[in-house]
């Protein structure tokens, strides 16, 4: 589903954010991406979501070579992805419902279908009763769940999350992670960038670890390894 082949990214400032990273994520996998800040996690996600382009190497997502993606094709490519942000990127000038509806409006979904799908997505994250509220009045965990609902409302094949539990307490973090696991269970390929090693260890999933722009670990860690 996602293939990185010898991917390097050097920013204009001359900083090497990723160096010769190769990895493969199968369809239906759930993978964690970890590493210290500055290790290249964000860069990898930006490359994956076509926000940045690689300096070298090729990236294949759902059979599409991102190097060959023209600027005009990027929006259509992104519709296959669900993206969850650390700061959730919700719009406070509209209701929870309208926030979640945005990807569907963008994709040109009929009004009836839109209402049905938005409610289904909100129901999945347990926030159906708050659809009319402004996200600004919600708690941090709820806001993040709205962000997740928005990411999955278009039924994307791939769900990408950047530090989705960054500002949440352990209990809420665990709930959010479980939510990702639930989506993975119905066939969505999930990639979560996080530095919450303990939580990751508990999930017992494949982990990719970046350090200084290089992939230094790829495997399913045991609890003891994570504690090190």
């Amino acid at each position, binding site marked *: 589903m996602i293939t990185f082949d010898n991917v390097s990214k050097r920013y204009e400032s001359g900083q090497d954010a990723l160096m010769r990273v190769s990895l493969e994520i*199968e*369809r*239906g*996998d759930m993978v964690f991406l970890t590493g210290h800040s500055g290790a290249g996690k964000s860069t990898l996600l930006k490359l994956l*979501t076509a*926000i940045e382009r690689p300096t070298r190497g090729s990236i294949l997502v759902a059979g599409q070579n991102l190097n060959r993606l023209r600027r*005009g094709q990027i*929006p*259509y*490519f*992104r*519709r*296959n*992805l669900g*993206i969850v942000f650390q700061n959730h*990127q919700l*719009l406070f*000038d509209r209701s929870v419902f309208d926030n979640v509806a*945005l*990807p569907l*409006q*963008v*994709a*040109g*979904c*009929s*009004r009836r*279908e839109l209402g049905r799908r938005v409610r*289904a997505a909100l*129901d*999945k*994250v*347990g926030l*159906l009763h708050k659809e009319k509220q402004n996200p600004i009045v919600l708690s941090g965990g709820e806001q993040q769940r709205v962000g997740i609902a*928005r990411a999955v409302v*278009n*039924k*994307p*094949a*791939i769900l990408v999350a950047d530090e989705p539990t960054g500002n949440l307490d352990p209990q809420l973090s665990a*709930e959010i992670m*479980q*939510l990702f*696991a*639930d989506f*993975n*269970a*119905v*066939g*969505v*390929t999930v990639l979560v960038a996080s530095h919450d090693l303990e939580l990751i260890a508990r999930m017992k999933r494949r982990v990719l670890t970046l350090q200084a722009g290089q992939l230094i670990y790829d495997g399913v860690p045991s609890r003891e390894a994570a504690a090190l």
Partner: protein
Amino acid sequence: MKQPPYKKSPQISRKSQRVATEVKPQRPTGAVTARTGMGDRWHSWLGHHREMAVESLRRFFATPIASGMTALVIAIALALPAALQLGLANFQRAVAGWDGQPQISVFLHMDITEDRAEAFADTLRAELDVAEVTYISPEEALLEFQQAAGLGDALAGLDSNPLPAVLLLRPRDTEAESLEALAERLRESALVDAVVLDMAWVQRLARLTELGRRLSAGLAALLALGVVLVVVNTIRLHIENRREEILVAKLVGGTDAFVRRPFLYSGLCYGFFGGLLAWLLVAVAVALLSGPVAGLSSTYGSGYTLQGPGYRYLLGLTVGAALLGLTGAWLAVARHIQAIEPR
């Protein structure tokens, strides 16, 4: 890789079971990518246009003072050339109503009898480019001369009438060139002594009208540019204010066209209301001036009244201004929306 069985997390409500079956949990290999049919897409595209049109109106009236001021700036810029244009049209109408329309005076030879003169007048009446011929006999001319000029005493000293018979011609075509041609044809006739065509007046009027027309066209072009720039600036501010929204829309797969649309409608909105206000300004000005103008024209014994900006001006101003607004918005989004990309 074996997937763990689907387990409900505690905060998920009962309904999610239904949702889960929709996405077919028994097929862990493939996520279902959303597909939207062509018909749906067309409907949704239209729907989005309608929504954005309504939304732009809502936004316009949500900040009535700011929007009103922008619209007023546009209105003033457009009212100026529109008023000039209307004034010009009114002026042309006024001079068209005057008796001072181009007229050709044809002086006949002194020895022409009245019968021959009348016959000549009849042949002229039959010509296509002559609208009207008035025959003035030497006696009538003398009478008129005595009354008008107060020279009765001087003329009384003469033992015979020195005035010739005159034909006053009103040509159908008032173009300077055709008038000149007609006068030339008349001069060739054996009966005619002299032909006087008051060309200077006709030419001056034509030049003056042309000057006014060019002036108003130049002003209109300049002020239209001003309107476009006002809208560019306003829309640029809108774009800055909605930066977050643009970023999010682009991240969830919004095309440039999708992101552009609300701003284009806003530009259209500013232009339309600006045009409407401009029409109102002109209409009010005409209403204020029509009283004094009617009074003035009545002292000249004319029933002339000022013509207001009719529905043609309304249509022209609103549609024209809306297009200018759209142009401005387009220039603004073309420059600024591409620059807002997720980082």
